[in-house]
């Protein structure tokens, strides 16, 4: 059982689900152990790794709690970690991500302490190469609102930079193991029904882009999950009125986002289908230029003509 070092402050529980990412695991662990915040309950769950992971964890001895288990998948592992810990604030840090600097946790925890009405606070993230070289920060977030996030169908919350009040889990449930790519996004959507989510303008974590990064490598397979997430969400009966009011537009944007995923994965047929579905959800959407642009992108985005004309307008696009 974790004992607070400073009883006047809340405890942060950090769970790291580790599965065959021994190359990055040390960075993750060190970034947690080096935090200047006093009360951090750290748990690493080795989800049946077959690489060096158990040996690395053993090196750390009892500096944090760790355990090797039979493989059960990322989402159930995080839920298990949350279940066996006690911190008033919780988060998880995947074994290829790190906190950004020594003060990252303090920044988040101070914000939640000062703003008792806020349920989740999040900062920005720094994309890095596999070797840790910084690339660029996540897209700047201007005036974050939950409604905008749902409406635009963008997951603007950088997961490793988010700090979550534990009571939210009791209210809206754990991470849903049915989600393979978007378990965090789905959780934000549910949490936002009952709790305030706010953004701080500070980089709090790094997000490593590497060959095995789930969302980078497999965007096409994430498309149906996105559709499932949104339909499931709007089938709820506890959606706040201001979100319900934009349901049709949100579904339209979901179709565009998911069409974009298909397109990135090279599936032009399904990208086109999603584009058509978008305007079925919200026919009036056709009259906005931005939507027509998204529509054309889903329909033609992979064609050489589209790419060429975009290059002419915007200059060459980065490839990662």
């Amino acid at each position: 059982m974790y004992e607070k070092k400073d009883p006047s402050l809340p405890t942060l529980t950090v769970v790291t689900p580790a599965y065959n990412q021994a190359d990055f695991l040390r960075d993750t662990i060190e970034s947690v152990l080096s935090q200047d915040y006093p009360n951090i309950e750290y748990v690493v769950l080795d989800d049946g790794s077959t690489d060096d992971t158990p040996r690395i964890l053993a090196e750390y001895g009892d500096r944090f709690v760790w355990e090797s288990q039979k493989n059960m998948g990322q989402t159930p592992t995080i839920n298990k970690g949350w279940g066996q810990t006690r911190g008033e604030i919780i988060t998880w840090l995947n074994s290829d991500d790190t906190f950004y600097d020594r003060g990252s946790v303090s920044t988040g925890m101070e914000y939640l302490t000062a703003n008792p009405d806020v349920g989740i606070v999040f900062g920005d993230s720094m994309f890095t190469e596999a070797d840790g070289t910084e690339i660029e920060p996540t897209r700047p977030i201007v005036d974050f609102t939950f409604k905008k996030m749902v409406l635009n169908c963008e997951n603007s919350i950088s997961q490793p930079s988010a700090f979550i009040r534990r009571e939210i889990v009791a209210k809206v449930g754990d991470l849903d193991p049915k989600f393979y790519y978007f378990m965090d996004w789905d959780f934000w959507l549910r949490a936002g029904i009952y709790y305030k989510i706010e953004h701080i303008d500070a980089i709090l974590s790094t997000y490593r882009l590497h060959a095995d990064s789930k969302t980078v490598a497999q965007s096409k397979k994430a498309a149906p999950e996105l559709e499932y997430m949104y339909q499931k969400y709007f089938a709820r009966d506890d959606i706040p009125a201001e979100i319900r009011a934009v349901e049709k537009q949100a579904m339209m944007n979901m179709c565009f986002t998911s069409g974009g995923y298909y397109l990135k994965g090279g599936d032009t047929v399904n990208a086109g289908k999603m584009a058509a579905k978008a305007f079925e959800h919200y026919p009036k959407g056709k009259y906005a230029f931005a939507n027509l642009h998204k529509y054309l992108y889903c329909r033609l985005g992979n064609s050489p003509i589209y790419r060429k004309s975009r290059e002419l307008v915007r200059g060459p696009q980065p490839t990662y």
Partner: protein
Amino acid sequence: MPQLVSVIIPTYNYGRFIAEALRSVLVQTHPPSEIIVIDDGSTDDTGEVVAPFSEQVKYIRQENAGVCAARNRGVAESKGELVAFLDADDIWEPTKLEKQVAKFAADSRIGLVHCGMREFDDETGETIRVHLDGGEEGVAENLLLWEGPVIVGPGGTVMVSRKAFDEVGGFDERMKVGEDWDLCYRIARRFKVGFVAEALVNYRSHGAAAHHSVENMERGMTIFYEKAFVDPSVSHLRRRAYGNFYKVMAGSYFHARNYRKFASHAVRSIWLRPSNLGYFLAFPLRRYRK
């Protein structure tokens, strides 16, 4: 308002899945009045897996007789006014029964309610597809014509009223494939159909899932059509129905790399429905784009 729901779970050698299916029934927000597992002569550990549930689940074992016979037996052993079918490798969402019961309660002419379905990969848990394109109006005609919205995943999503099930005489035990399509058609001809546009069933996609050859499917559907067109009131739809059916079959044969049957079905399809010509002319292009 009809409240009593019987859940029928036919199973054959799905011991590794059935506990999860049963748990998804036991947490329903509208609890069923009874849960009946018909073990169709499994040779695996199904019996032992179901044993711990014996307080809530009625377990009936029969000699292997096929899924239709198992479902019919289940209905015969049950008492609820509403009957919901669950395949032992699928998983329900907790509100599945509640939302379907509400549909029945809203309109007494409804004989069948289906719902959306999420198809997931058994190994990784990834969502493969979400099926929400189910129909309420004109479902019978759509089933006959293979056009427009029909019944989503007929085997695993439907709840029927006992009245409707009995009136049409249950599943046709001669059929090995398409028996659910056939039952839905016969009910939809006489009763209203309700649809809950929400993925309330999680359909497990795995190697062992009833994998039928195209030939078997054709045989099953041929029985379906033979029976359907006994009724003269639909005979005007015959050419269109067969034309579309052969079109689908041609596509399946192509997929199965049986190019000879693909060609013969394509010709028959165009003969019966010349407007399908466009579909077949564009066929190579569509293949190429995929």
